[in-house]
């Protein structure tokens, strides 16, 4: 029974890790690509860490809570790094699949002059 639960958790975790990286490789623009690793991969690694926690807790050497540290750390830092990456991408004005709102379009030239040295970085 325990082995079934462990195997299911491990397979689920590896599958989500794989799907997250597949999204990173296959999606169209940076803002959609950001979703794969920051959500799917975090869930996958969390699932693997829970599997490891159960595995080492049931070997008769007492509770094993090291993994909780890694899980907590990953779950706290993943949104922060995703936010910073999105900020950097917006700053560099990367190509986006979404339609740009008209007000942002109107204010784009001034901002481009202020932020970026050349007009080639504005790819809209």
């Amino acid at each position, binding site marked *: 029974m325990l082995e079934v639960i462990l195997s299911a958790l491990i397979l689920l975790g590896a599958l989500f890790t794989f799907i997250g990286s597949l999204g990173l490789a296959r999606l169209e623009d940076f803002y959609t690509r950001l979703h794969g690793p920051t959500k799917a991969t975090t869930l*996958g690694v969390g699932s693997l860490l829970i599997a490891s926690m159960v595995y080492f807790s049931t070997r008769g050497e007492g509770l094993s809570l090291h993994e909780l540290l890694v899980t907590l750390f990953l779950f706290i*830092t993943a949104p922060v790094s995703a936010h910073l990456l999105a900020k950097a*991408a917006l700053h560099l004005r990367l190509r986006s699949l979404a339609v740009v709102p008209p007000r942002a379009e109107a204010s784009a030239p001034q901002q481009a002059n202020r932020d970026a040295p050349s007009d080639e970085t504005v790819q809209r």
Partner: protein
Amino acid sequence: MLSTAVSIAFLLVGAAFVMALLRLLYGPDQPDRILALDTLYVNTVALLVLLGIHLGSALYFEAALLIAMMGFVGTVALCKYLLRGDIIE
């Protein structure tokens, strides 16, 4: 059963590594490459945890924890560099 599951998981995480590596090589912009590096270190944590289960040794968590912390610091530093042109102002 557990060893089969761990073997399949090794394969899947290895494939995830290859995908992130492809994005690191071909990613058209700098944020894509930083995101690929971020994914690589999260995948490394997954791989180390799997190795711990495979070998039955609890020794690998310290390595996983260190990689998680250092990877986060690296991502933040690279993003700050892109945002401000400098890391520590």
